């Protein structure tokens, strides 16, 4: 018992000491707590503020583009890339770990993407994606991200119409920043892609991650995937386009086919480029090589190149002459092979002469002398006035950007721009579509459309319909009558008769023996830099035109030759595979 009590006493004493030790410990803890949360509050608050959310944008999904039969012209294809959320891991370490998991050497293309993300590998093959997804626990901060890559299955065939996409430039960004574009966005760079950017542009997604004061990603808090908004259906007939594009093979030129009411079925331009390589991101070197190429592949020869239209312009002269009653159905001129005017000889293309020609025969055989006479009687202003009635000289409002307008020269224009007076020779040149007159093939095509509809000018368009996210039709483009050229019926009748004779008796013999009546006109444009440009355009069937076509080949000589033959082949193809009645498959 004595032991017990002695120990007990000691223990009571020690417990008192222990109590004081505890008191001291707890006092120190409280003091430290006060120091941290009251005394140093500001400092730590600021540290905590820097622990914050980071929003990592996800590239928007761009709408698809289809041809009139639903064939894909452009679409965003999913690809996978390996993304490292910055700050979660060192790039070197990440590469080591990825290599370890893939179990093989792999090329890393480390580059900055949107802020806060680094791309490790672009276009990761699917089997590697699976390998990484299986072991994603071991790779915190590394994500497999799907992204879209713009794909153009038609490649070069439709490049000028569709255009391409690319990273937004500083200048574009300045203009577009109000609509929510940002530095890393992709935008349309030409053609439909550019013109309908606002429709094709998708909704951006984002990923919200929590990042700490030290820059490490702690958690993914929110994820909203990118979505697409609209898809477009074009009036283009891809199969027909392909056929026409290959008709141009090896040449420079363009083929345009469409409906007189504005739909465009084919717009082929050679030489072309592959939009896939452009959307994939070219090196500066490749880019400048393409742009500076002597072949100028980026020029849309249908809308952006100006040529003298040659004899096709005689249509305007004939119309003006008939309507102004300078000539009538019975008016004839004699063609000895040239016209002598104030002591100078202006030749017909046929030096042997055409003999006595009326307006129909003049069109059919493209007699220059006949139109020299008409033009001299009309004067240049009247001719240009008629051309303008068809909307020539002003952009048509076609839904691809960069369209150029024709140059319709008048004495006033010449005085202002060339500081020279207008000579009668200029009028004679204008009569046969030469001299200062320059037209884009597309404006020539529009002229043909206007003739085909007997003066009803519809707005040309590529867009046929807009689809929403679910693929439902939300907007359909209907023909828009832009202007009307009111001429006497007799004028139209005579002109169309003449154009019909072009095929049956005249320069358009290449298109004879086709099961439909074709109205057409050849053109051979003299080119000071080389061989003549070859034109051939028209429409069929004559009484109720459904298809308007135009072929223009640079440096291919006579319009009745290569251009007419190409036209013949496309007409044959169309009648065989599309037909006139059953064309809306």
């Amino acid at each position, binding site marked *: 018992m004595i*032991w*017990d009590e002695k*120990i*007990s006493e*000691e*223990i*009571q004493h*020690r*417990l008192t000491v*222990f*109590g004081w*030790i*505890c*008191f001291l*410990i*707890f006092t120190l*803890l*409280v003091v*430290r*707590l*006060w120091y*941290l*949360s*009251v005394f*140093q*509050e500001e*400092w*730590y*608050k600021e*540290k*905590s503020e820097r*622990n*914050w*959310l980071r929003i990592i944008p996800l590239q928007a999904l761009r709408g698809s583009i289809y041809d009139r039969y639903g064939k894909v012209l452009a679409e965003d294809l999913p690809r996978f890339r390996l993304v490292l959320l910055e700050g979660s891991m060192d790039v070197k370490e990440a590469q080591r770990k990825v290599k370890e998991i893939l179990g093989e050497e792999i090329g890393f293309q480390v580059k900055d993407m949107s802020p806060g993300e680094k791309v490790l590998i672009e276009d990761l093959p699917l089997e590697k994606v699976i390998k990484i997804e299986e072991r994603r626990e071991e790779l915190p901060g590394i994500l497999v991200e799907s992204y879209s890559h713009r794909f153009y299955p038609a490649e070069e065939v439709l490049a000028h119409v569709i255009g391409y996409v690319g990273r937004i430039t500083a200048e574009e960004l300045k203009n577009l920043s109000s609509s929510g574009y940002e530095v890393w966005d992709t935008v349309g760079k030409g053609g439909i892609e550019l013109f309908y950017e606002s429709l094709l542009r998708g909704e951006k997604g984002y990923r919200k991650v*929590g990042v*700490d*004061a*030290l820059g*490490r990603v*702690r*958690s993914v*808090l929110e994820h909203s995937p990118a979505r697409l908004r609209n898809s477009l259906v074009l009036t283009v007939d891809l199969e027909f386009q392909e056929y026409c594009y290959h008709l141009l093979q090896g040449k420079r030129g363009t083929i345009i086919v469409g409906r007189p009411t504005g739909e465009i079925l084919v717009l082929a331009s050679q030489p072309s480029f592959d939009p896939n390589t452009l959307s994939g991101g070219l090196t500066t070197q490749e880019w400048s090589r393409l742009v500076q190429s002597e072949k100028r592949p980026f020029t849309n020869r249908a809308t952006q190149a100006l040529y003298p239209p040659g004899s096709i312009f005689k249509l305007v002269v004939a119309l003006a002459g008939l309507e102004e009653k300078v000539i009538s159905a019975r008016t004839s001129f004699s063609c000895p092979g040239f016209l002598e005017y104030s002591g100078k000889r202006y030749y017909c293309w046929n030096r042997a002469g055409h003999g006595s020609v009326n307006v129909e025969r003049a069109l059919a055989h493209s007699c220059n002398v006949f139109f020299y006479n008409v033009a001299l009687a009309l004067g240049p202003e009247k001719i240009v006035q008629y051309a303008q009635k068809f909307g020539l000289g002003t952009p048509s409002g076609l839904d691809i950007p960069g369209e150029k307008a024709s140059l319709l020269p008048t004495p006033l224009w010449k005085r202002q721009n060339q500081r020279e007076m207008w000579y009668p020779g200029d009028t004679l040149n204008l009569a046969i579509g030469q001299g200062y007159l320059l037209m884009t093939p597309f404006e020539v095509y529009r002229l043909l459309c206007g003739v085909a509809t007997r003066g009803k000018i519809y707005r040309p368009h590529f867009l046929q319909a807009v689809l929403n996210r679910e693929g439902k039709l939300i907007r359909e483009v209907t023909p828009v009558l832009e202007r009307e050229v009111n001429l006497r019926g007799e004028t139209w009748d005579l002109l169309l008769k003449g154009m019909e004779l072009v095929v049956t008796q005249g320069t358009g013999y290449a298109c004879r023996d086709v099961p439909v009546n074709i109205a057409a006109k050849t053109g051979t444009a003299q080119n000071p830099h080389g061989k003549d440009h070859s034109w051939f355009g028209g429409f069929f069937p004559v009484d109720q035109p459904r298809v308007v076509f135009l072929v223009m080949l640079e440096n291919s000589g006579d319009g009745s030759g290569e251009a007419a033959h190409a036209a013949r082949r496309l007409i044959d193809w169309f009648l065989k595979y599309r037909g006139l009645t059953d064309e809306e498959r």
Partner: protein
Amino acid sequence: MRNDKILLCLACVLCFLGLVAIYSVDPAREAGWSMQSFFGRQFFWNVFGWSLFIFFALIDYRVLVKLGWLWYFLLLLALGAVLVFGESDETGARRWIFSQSVQPSEFAKIILPLFLSFYLSKNRENIPSYALLLKSGFWVFLPVGLIFLEPDLGTSLVLLVVWLGMLFISGFGRNHFALVGLGLGGIGAVGWSFLKDYQKERLFTFLDPWKDPLGSGYNVLQSQIAIGAGGLGGQGWLSGKQSQLRFLPARHTDFIFASWCEQMGFLGGVALILLLGFFIWIMIRIARHAPDLEGKLLASLFGVIFVFQVLVNVGMNMGVMPVTGIPLPFVSYGGSALVVNVAIVGLLYNIANSGRKKVAKCRFRWDYQQ
């Protein structure tokens, strides 16, 4: 109010605060009252623990103390099993058996005090003596060594401190402690070579966390930022960037104090510290009033365990103690620890009750002696 009642109330309040704190940072809060959420599981452990409490409160602690050797060997067995069949956790340490549900090292926190009070009361004639010091030291170092090998630096430290506390409470003198200091210094030098790299790193970063802010210093910095950002009044229940945005690691276990302070501020933190302090003061009072040596030793050893755990955990949250993975009693998430703590409360309640009866007698005897 009597000690036993106050103790019970404090333990209940602490458990409740623990649930509240775990709920506030539960990563699986949406799962609600189910075994998927952390607070749901903690609630289950509370229910289980408090039913154990009844058992420990009713059985006379002297019966349990008398079975000291049995507990001791069961503990060695369990710890041995951990080393042989144990399951690893995310740090690579093997601490668990029974599919990560039981952590035997936690039970050492109740068994070692039981054994030591048994062993000392049995050898009370030899207090204080070098022989007893060495012998008790031997018995303590067996389990401590096994836990250290898991490795679980925190718990082995706690147990070592239990032994030191025992030496101190039971009246060992300066010379004894000098010897212990020498011995521990030697062992420490040897043990250093056994430390895993991450443990050494932890000890170093404690000295200067900014040296490696992204690596081993990260936890310490983030928890200090959390506490500092809480300010005087806190950012409010369920708010606070550090804990809610998951910048703070182990925010429902080791660093729950920091997330609590971010939400409740200095005032909430002090309240929690004072509650814990009050709880320990009650434990010391129970020890003082315990009727026999076994009770006194048992209660004071539990007191030592609690103080040490609170000191290390709260200190580590505030960046003044190394990160050792010692949980905050009652508050940190963790089933084994909670059950053990509630069982300890049961034993203390038991001691306080029997103490009350004896104290009456003592006082009578004391009066009589005077």
